[in-house]
Every structure is written in C-alpha cells, then in structure tokens.
C-alpha cells in the first residue's frame, strides 16, 4: 500500500529537482556576447542570434529568433542602436515580459561602457550613424571587463540561486582576462602607430586600444557599400600614407579590399571579428587578432 505514495513523493521530488536545475536560457544578439556569457554562466543554454558571418546591423527578425527570445531568461545585446532594425521586433513579437527594455533580463551592454564617437547631431546624410556611438566595443578589453561585471550582476538578479557562482566565474574570468590583456599589449607594442584601411568602423576599439590608426574606410559613408570611385580615391591615400594593411570582418565583402590590395601592394586580411567555430572564446578571437596583426606587420 505504501509503495505508490512513495513513488509519487519521489516523482514530485525529482520534478522539483529537474525544474530548479533547468538551465538558464540566455539569448545573445551577437556571438561575442554569447562567448562572454559562456565564461560567466557555463551551464546556461546560450543562443547566439548572429554568427561571425552575419552583419549584426542586418538581421531578419525571423521566427526562430522570436521563438528563442520567447524562451530566454536573459538577453544580452550590444545596444547603442546596433540592433535597432530587428531587436524591437523580437521584443514586440515574443511576448516575453522579462526581456522588456528596463528589466534586469534585458541587458544592453552599451549601458555598461562609454562608447566612442558619440554624436551630438545625427542625420542620414551622414550615412547610417548612431548618436549613441560606435557599438562594436567588444574589441576593447577594458570594456569587455565592464560588460562582464554587469552581466554577472544581471545574471545574479535573474537567477538569484546561482548568484555566488556567477560572481565566482566572473572573478576567475577577470583574472585570466587581465593576464591575457597584458600579454596581448606587450606583444602588440611594436604595432603602435600602424595605419590601416578598414571596412566600416568595425575595428574602431581595437585600433583605439592598441594605438593604431584607421586612415581610410572602404565604405564611402557608414553603412553604404564600397563604390568604384571611392575605392579609387583610397589608392591615392594608400600611396600618401604608409598603410600596413587593409582589414575587414567575416561578414563584409572581401572584393573591395582585394581590388585595392591588387592596385596598391598593401596586404588585405580578413580579421577575426567575433567568436566563431574557429575562435570559440573571446580569448581565441583576441589571440587570432594579435597574431594576424603581427603577421601583417612583419610581412610589410
């Protein structure tokens, strides 16, 4: 007679246990934040909405993203209007009240950092620019640190039970990050003052961090694709300035860079921009970036 009751109790206990140990769902708008979330919440189920091959400005608010946004306990996005063309649609369609703007679960990383190139006045004749500043700040180690701290805090608010473990993971990450940052800075010291032509302002923070200079942009205006006339004007610029390399990301068309490289003998290179299968962690991304910048520097 006792057996069924025991079974029921045991069953209920198991159900409770599985409910509490159910992984936290994290929605990362960009792959870099998915990689950072992995450092702070390694047990969470993390979904990256964009890959290293996708331009985060141009993402479709597709059904799969709405479904993932609906399931998420926390979303981490760059903010600074980077996702303005699609994230509000996900918020509107997913009916997830925890991810309303202003809730602890909706984390815009830009709120944790000071962005570069904020604009007092913006109009579209200037191209696709944002008053909130450049949103590609994951290539700034000091800003990654600030985002990590705020992320750990938010995770603790959303999932109080594991607050201590998020703080533990954070401090572990920060130790490794700071050691690695010093190593990268030491290695990259010789690059100081090098000049680059880049696609968009994607590497703005990398250049800022290592005191490198972007002397030209393959885009005639932010958000507009390279035009023959504009590329031709960069030939002259490459001659006048001592350009080390022409660089672009995995989601940007390589043809403009190749065209210019062929006519100027300046090397072109696709740099690791964010986490991918080849570079799963932010450490891997930075390592690859420094390696490639060093190679381009030595080859010159």
């Amino acid at each position, binding site marked *: 007679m006792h057996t069924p009751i025991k079974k029921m109790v045991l069953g209920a206990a198991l159900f409770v246990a599985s409910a509490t140990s159910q992984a936290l769902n994290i929605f990362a708008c960009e792959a870099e934040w998915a990689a950072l979330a992995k450092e702070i919440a390694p047990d969470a189920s993390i979904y990256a909405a964009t890959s290293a091959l996708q*331009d985060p400005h141009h993402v479709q608010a597709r059904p799969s993203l709405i479904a993932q946004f*609906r399931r998420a306990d926390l979303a981490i996005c760059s903010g600074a209007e980077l996702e303005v063309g699609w994230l509000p649609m996900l918020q509107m369609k997913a009916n997830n009240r925890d991810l309303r703007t202003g809730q602890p679960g909706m984390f815009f990383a830009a709120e944790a950092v000071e962005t570069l190139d904020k604009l007092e006045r913006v109009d579209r004749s200037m191209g696709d620019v944002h008053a909130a500043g450049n949103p590609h700040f994951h290539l*700034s180690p000091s800003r990654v640190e*600030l985002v990590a701290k*705020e992320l750990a805090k938010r995770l603790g608010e959303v999932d109080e039970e594991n607050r201590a473990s998020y703080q533990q993971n954070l401090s572990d990450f920060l130790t490794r990050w700071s050691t690695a940052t010093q190593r990268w800075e030491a290695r990259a010291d010789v690059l100081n003052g090098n000049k680059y032509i880049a696609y968009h302002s994607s590497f703005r923070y990398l250049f800022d961090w290592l005191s490198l200079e972007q002397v030209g942009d393959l885009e005639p205006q932010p*958000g507009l694709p390279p035009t023959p006339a504009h590329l031709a004007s960069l030939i002259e610029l490459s001659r006048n300035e001592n350009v080390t390399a022409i660089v672009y990301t995995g989601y940007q068309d390589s043809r403009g860079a190749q065209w210019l490289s062929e006519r100027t003998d300046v090397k072109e290179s696709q740099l690791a921009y964010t986490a991918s299968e080849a570079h799963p962690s932010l450490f891997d991304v930075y390592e690859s970036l420094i390696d490639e910048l060093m190679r381009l520097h030595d080859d010159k």
Partner: protein
Amino acid sequence: MKTKTSNISKTTSISSAIAFASLASTPVLAQSDINISAVLDGYYQEDALSEGLREDGFNLGHSELALSAPVDDSFYGKMTLVVASHEGEVELELEEAFIQTTALPAGFGIRAGRMLSDIGYLNNQHLHTDSFSERPIAYRAMLGSHYADDGIRLNWVAPTETYIALGAEVFAGDALALEDAEPNDSSIGVSTLYAKMGGDIGNSNSWQLGAAYLRNESGQLHPEEHHDAHGAHDADADHGAHGDEDGHDDHGHGPAYGGKNMAIFDATYKWAPNGNYKYQSLTLSAELLIADDLYEEVDLDEQNTGWYVSGIYQINPNWSVASRYGKFKGWSFHEFHTEADGTTVAEFEAEETTNTSLSVGWHPSHFSVIRLFATKEETTGDSSSSNTIVGIGFNTAIGAHGAHAY
C-alpha cells in the same frame, strides 16, 4: 579620416570602472524617447490596376507618419497616419492607433485599438515595405488591399524552439464590410483565428507557415440587390461620384468580393548566404485565400479564390528585382432566371483576373528606393481584357529606423 585615440585605452583605472558600473544601473533616457518616423511615397503610373489603391498619373502613394513608444511599464503604443491622394484629393486615414501589452505572463499578448489584422503573411506588413506597387490581386479583391480595423487581439507564443504562435481577433468589421453588403448591426463584424509556425534550416534558410480563418458577418451579398451590378467593376466606376454624394470617405471601404467564411494559407521562405542579409537575399512567398458562403438565400456551391507566388531578390545593397504572379476568381450575381417548370434560379458568373508583375528597385541607401514597376492584368469571364500598367515611384523613410517584420 583620422582616428582619434581616446583616453580610455590600454589601462582602465579602477575609479573609472566603478564610475561606469554605477552608470549602468541608471536608466537610459534614450530608450524612452518617442519614435517618430515618416514614409514619403510618390509615383507616376499609366492607368490603374483593378481593385487597387493607386491611380493613373502623378499621385501621392501611401505616405505615413508614425509615432510609437512604450506607454509605461505595461503598454506600448503606436499611431500611424496615412496620407494618400485619391481622386485628386488628399485623404487622411488613421491606419493604426493601438496599445499592446508588454507585461503579460506566459507568452500572452493583447493588442487593442485600430490595428492591422495578423492574418496571412502580407496583411500585417505595412504597404511601404512591399516590393510591388500594389498588393496581390487576391488581397485587393478580398481584403481591400490590407485589412486594418478597430478591435482586439489575443495572441500566445509557445515556449518552443520552433516558432509557434496562435491568435484570435475580433473587429468592428466596417473595413471589411463588402461595398454592396447590407449594413450589419452586429457589434462584432469580423472575427479571426490564426496560427503561425516557423524556423531555420541551417544557417542560410528560414521559413514560416501560417493558416487563418476569418468570419465576416458582412461578407455576404443579397442576389436581388445586385441586378444591375456585374460585381465590383461597375461599383468601382461610380466610386467617386457616389463618395461625393454622401460626403463620405470612400478610401478604406470594404473589398468588392468576400464571403462569410474565409481561409488563408501562407508560406514564406528566405535565404541569404550564411544568413548574412548585408548583400544578397531571396524571399519567396505564396498565399492562398478561399472565401465561401458568398450569397445569402441562394445555394451557390462556388468559392472566391485568390492566390499568388512572389519572389524578391536583393542582388546587392543597391539593386533588387521582384516578380509576382497572382490570380483571383470571383463570383458575381447575374440575374434570376425562370426555368420551364416555373422555378426561379439565380444565375452567377465568374470573372478571373490574372496579374503578372515585375519590379526593379534601386536603393541608394537602406532608407530610400526608386522603383520601376509593371503589371500585366488579364481578365476573362463575361468580358475579356488585357492591360499593362507601368510606372515609377519612390519610397523613402525618414526619422526613427523602425524594425522590420519577417
């Protein structure tokens, strides 16, 4: 271009780290700003398509002014005003004025006010996002191009990895009351039920399927009242004069064809290399609309049916091409006819319209497009005709960058 080096480089002092961390906890004011956006749309075309919104010559298209913002912690609000020229007059139409809940639990959402119904694939999308000058003939004939009305919607999104959304709407129904239907005193003129699902296939492909049912209390016609009318075309011809007579705003009147019960099925597929929509992408979509119970009092075992397939190819950021093929077959009452045995029989006749459309868009930026468009319209039935409409138009967006629906 010279890249300035900021003072936050290489090393971040502890004090600035703390300053930024505290900054993070303060609300960001920019998020609470009102979004104001305007769409400017103008065109020139030769002739006009049947049941369409656009007319011969130079005209203002579907120009919009939209305001939106969170109302408070629980609601989001949006208002869209449409300015269009019609019969040489500028008309102002309130297309949307709704509040949407943002704080309901368990994936539920409620929208109330004037809104675009969420049936089908195209209906909830704003006209200015279209790649063609007009909606497909099925939408023009059966939904009045786009169906917006006063009412309320409840929807639910499932907590699954595959997107599943269910919704139910009730509307006043005036906007979908047939042009020639008897006024209906029911306070709920239109009710709908819909389901959508969708997902990804690999990195490059995504899809969505939808099914909807719509019940229209003013979707049936009385055969005896339409002795003189061969369906919509005659009604359309005296549209202007009729409107002037009773000083009534004609634009936004219900469609010419309907049915008490309507089903809509839609399928959409999108592709971009590695899912990167920066340069190239392809959108294929198809919809089927079937309306039944077309006439009161008579037993007409026929349906009004319309469908289309369309493909939009973004060749590069500056150029896109789009083509669409669509058909609509609609039934109209012809006359009563007395058989040899003395019984009276209602006679109906069908008219079939085929549209073949092509458009080419030049996009100087993400916010502007200049489009050349052409549609060949063929009608068969009581009378047959063929007509080709060509035109050019611009469509630009200023102000806040609105997010795009799938």
